[in-house]
């Protein structure tokens, strides 16, 4: 492909050789052969100890007493830990959690104590012997009652909590953070609008369900070093939080080492720090002994982050020509018992809750509300999946009400480059209109289809999506790169290979700059002692941010390579270029020096001495144009988001009118990747994300009883898709409007692919049946009962 992209890494021919190709994953063989090692697969020898956790059976209670005496006497027990051992707070954006509960438990499943024993079975047996006496309190289980007047305060000390400067806790309420956007004059715009639609949409909680449960092995050695092997998306952030939380024990950052081998899926669930801190802390009680803590599938459901539920009150005003004039979006988030990470989901959603539309008058309130349910946190889509359900349902309803085609309506209002965002900055280049048109074409939008089965009807739907990475303004990435004797390359970075293909993409970026094929590049998973910094692998930002750091390291290495050639042969640096693993020269076509000849040993000169030496390089990237200093009352003034990735989803589905069963016959998804470094991997994100998103709308959801206990902490009753639960046909569409500051123009797509799935089903169900369902999930039961209700009234 020939392009005129403006990047420094441009190859000699102008044609990309590696970037833009569907290279085979560099971790493919590891994974298919069984060689891939995950944390639980590592061996720690006979000294390995096992931990089990005692958990609260109550959603809200005061701990009266804990009696560990029977457990201490049990067979195989080495040590018991309780809150008394670690009276330390921790948290990603807001320090509102303790390692083990102190005086109160605030959700069913909260950790109260831990047992360390010689075997897993002995640890579990002893944990049952710990007696905890509780004074049971009345829990608050939904966000609306938690913000009602006179509601009990779940965190009475909220105002004393340490938090990032862009959070605004509301003292003497259960609102841990309130993100406000005020732009234009919404009230006036509604008064002048030709049509206003107001309604409420509800989205429950969801579980990530990575197939690998959380697991961590921690060792605090005799020299006071803490090493943690962990299934994590965030090795450096974990190191930072361990060092901060355990600082009272004398630990500093250099004393903490986090090692993260392959991880069996994350989806946000393994971001930040959750159960790992218990393992790390417990290890400090048994010096020199590694301690393994592995979550059961049940714990995986109730004591890691969950995707927060939301009640969304939405009001949108339009003119008869279809122009959106005002949006008022109030998002009441069920953020759970601790919001140390989840509050940032609320923040991100609040900034972008207009969706991908040009809106002159905006009132957004995004409320992070404490409840006595498990802690909310990051989940693929980071708040956007949640609010898009209502927003994109609403857009269809408005289009219908004013007699406009739903695609036309969206085209008319879609945000494009240069439009003003809700917080005042301007929109980045994007291929939104192209995405809309291609998606609509892929599902034959506008063509009505009839089913040949008398029991079924067919419906079509479309929904747009957008999302920006939600990160602190100074989150950064770094990379190291070194050559080996044969011209192969090792790259060290600290992004995580979660399955998205990160390692392969980094290899492609470096390979493109250095003319080295992907098969000759090894990219390793992180060890914080050895690999350079990366904030976290979240927010769909590592292709962009870490990719830039790798690109810079490769460019630096190339400079060093050219320097050696210049020293020995005298060619000017700017006459040199790399091609097919060799240095070539524009002014001397006969010159070609293979990299493998000198990248370690250098080049011998005529006098017998040597020049050069091992080629090593580093790169870093920080988005220096962002800031989070916006006005708390209006949200104006800052530049919190680096850029948005946009796209569109369309489906054709068939519904059984008697049973409500839904088959997705065709699903198309167009996403603007800026540049697909590896189209096959982008398609992988489209397929995987779409299927995960469809599951949230068709059958998944977390159900709690009236005491706040999760009823379906297993795959028997929390159904995730099987090989039968995929669309008959998926049409992935990659749009490429380059991101000016991205590596080769790339921007992230990992989360975006699931965001449109929920509303697109809601819209297609309406299209098929004339029934509008405003709460997720849209199960076959809900559809069937809605059909029955409609026919019987």
């Amino acid at each position, binding site marked *: 492909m020939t392009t005129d992209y403006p990047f420094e890494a441009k190859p000699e021919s102008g044609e990309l050789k590696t970037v833009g190709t569907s290279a085979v994953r560099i971790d493919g063989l590891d994974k298919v052969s069984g060689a891939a090692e995950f944390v*639980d697969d590592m061996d720690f020898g006979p000294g390995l100890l096992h931990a089990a956790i005692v958990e609260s059976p109550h959603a809200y209670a005061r701990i009266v007493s804990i009696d560990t005496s029977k457990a201490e006497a049990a067979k195989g027990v080495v040590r018991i830990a309780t809150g008394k051992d670690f009276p330390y707070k921790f948290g990603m954006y807001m320090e509102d959690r303790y390692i083990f509960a102190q005086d109160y438990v605030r959700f069913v499943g909260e950790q109260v104590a831990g047992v360390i024993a010689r075997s897993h079975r002995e640890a579990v047996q002893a944990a049952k012997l710990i007696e905890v006496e509780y004074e049971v309190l009345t829990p608050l289980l939904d966000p609306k009652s938690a913000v009602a007047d006179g509601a009990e305060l779940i965190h009475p000390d909220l105002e004393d909590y340490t938090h990032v400067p862009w959070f605004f806790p509301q003292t003497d309420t259960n609102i841990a953070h309130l993100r406000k956007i005020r732009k234009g004059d919404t009230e006036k715009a509604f008064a002048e609008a030709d049509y206003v639609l107001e309604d409420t949409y509800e989205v429950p909680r969801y579980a990530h369900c990575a197939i690998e449960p959380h697991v961590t092995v921690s060792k605090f050695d005799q020299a006071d070093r803490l090493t943690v092997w962990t299934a994590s998306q965030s090795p450096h952030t974990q190191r930072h939080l361990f060092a901060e939380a355990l600082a009272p024990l004398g630990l500093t950052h250099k004393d903490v080492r986090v090692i993260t081998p392959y991880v069996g899926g994350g989806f946000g669930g393994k971001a930040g720090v959750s159960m790992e801190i218990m393992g790390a802390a417990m290890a400090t009680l048994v010096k020199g002994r590694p301690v393994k803590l592995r979550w059961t599938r049940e714990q995986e459901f109730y004591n890691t982050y969950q995707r927060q539920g939301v009640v969304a009150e939405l009001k949108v005003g339009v003119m008869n020509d279809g122009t959106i004039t005002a949006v008022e979006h109030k998002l009441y988030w069920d953020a759970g018992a601790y919001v140390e990470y989840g509050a940032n989901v609320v923040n991100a959603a609040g900034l972008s809750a207009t969706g991908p539309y040009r809106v002159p008058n905006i009132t957004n309130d995004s409320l992070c509300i404490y409840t006595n349910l498990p802690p909310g946190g990051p989940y693929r889509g980071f708040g956007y999946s949640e609010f898009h359900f209502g927003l994109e349902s609403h857009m269809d309803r408005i289009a219908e009400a004013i007699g406009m085609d739903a695609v036309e309506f969206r085209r008319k209002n879609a945000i494009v480059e240069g439009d003003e965002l809700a917080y005042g900055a301007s929109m980045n280049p994007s291929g939104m209109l192209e995405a809309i048109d291609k998606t609509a074409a892929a599902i034959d939008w506008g063509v009505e289809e009839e089913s040949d089965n008398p029991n079924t009807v067919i419906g079509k739907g479309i929904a747009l999506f957008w999302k920006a990475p939600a990160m602190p303004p100074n989150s950064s990435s770094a990379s190291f790169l070194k050559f080996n004797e044969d011209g192969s390359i090792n790259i060290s970075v600290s992004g995580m290979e979660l399955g998205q*293909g990160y390692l392969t993409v980094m290899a492609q970026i470096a390979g493109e700059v250095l003319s080295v094929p992907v098969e000759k590049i090894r990219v390793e998973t992180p060890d914080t002692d050895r690999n350079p910094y990366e904030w976290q692998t979240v927010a769909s930002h590592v292709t962009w941010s870490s990719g830039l750091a790798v690109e810079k390291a490769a460019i630096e290495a190339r400079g060093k390579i050219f320097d050696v050639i210049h020293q020995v042969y005298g060619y000017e640096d700017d006459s040199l270029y790399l091609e097919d693993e060799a240095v070539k020269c524009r002014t001397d076509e006969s010159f070609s020096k293979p990299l493998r000849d000198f990248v370690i040993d250098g080049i011998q000169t005529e006098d017998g001495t040597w020049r050069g030496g091992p080629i090593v390089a580093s790169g870093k990237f920080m988005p220096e144009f962002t800031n989070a200093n916006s006005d708390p009352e209006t949200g104006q003034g800052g530049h919190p988001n680096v850029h948005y990735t946009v796209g569109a989803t369309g489906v054709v589905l068939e519904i059984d009118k008697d049973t409500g069963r839904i088959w997705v016959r065709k699903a198309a998804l167009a996403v603007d990747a800026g540049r697909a470094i590896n189209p096959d991997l982008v398609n*992988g994100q489209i*397929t995987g994300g779409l299927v995960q998103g469809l599951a949230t709308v068709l059958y998944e959801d977390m159900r709690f009883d009236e005491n706040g206990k999760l009823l379906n902490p297993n795959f028997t009753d929390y159904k995730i898709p*099987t090989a039968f639960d995929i669309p008959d046909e998926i049409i992935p569409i990659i749009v490429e409007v380059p991101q000016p500051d991205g590596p080769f123009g790339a921007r992230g797509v990992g989360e975006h692919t699931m965001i449109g799935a929920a509303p697109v089903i809601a819209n297609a169900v309406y299209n098929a049946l004339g029934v509008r369902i405003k709460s997720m999930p849209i199960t076959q039961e809900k559809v069937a009962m809605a059909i029955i209700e409609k026919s019987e009234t």
Partner: protein
Amino acid sequence: MNLTIKVNGEDWALDVAPADVLLDVLRERIGVKSPKIGCERGDCGSCTVIMDGRTVRSCLILAVEADGHEITTVEGISYDGMSELQTLFIQNNSFQCGFCAPGIVLSATELLDNNPNPTRHDVQEALAGNLCRCTGYEPIIDAVLAAGEGGSE
């Protein structure tokens, strides 16, 4: 209790407790790590192994039940290099995080052993008990179908 078991062609004699589960014994006592712990109740298929020629959930089998039986895992089928199916999985970028891969490789291997030319529905049926959260299954199904067609030529 005594347990005599053949794993990937090698004979083992071990002393295990009746409450020890086959999955844990394979991983912790025999050092075969490709069967993974995903749910421990038969729902996810990560722990799939081949026992006497058929796939089973090693999380739902007591180790003592496997006494006298033969177990094959992905390590076992990979000794002599990748099978055609495995090669197609690699070339097709079928997996993402790869945690489900050992189980899926074995389930698909069992299918192709019994049915060299499976339909898409057959493949879905064979894999329906192996949960994959990453891929949406499409690239996995495609590779198995390709392996099937290859086998018939």
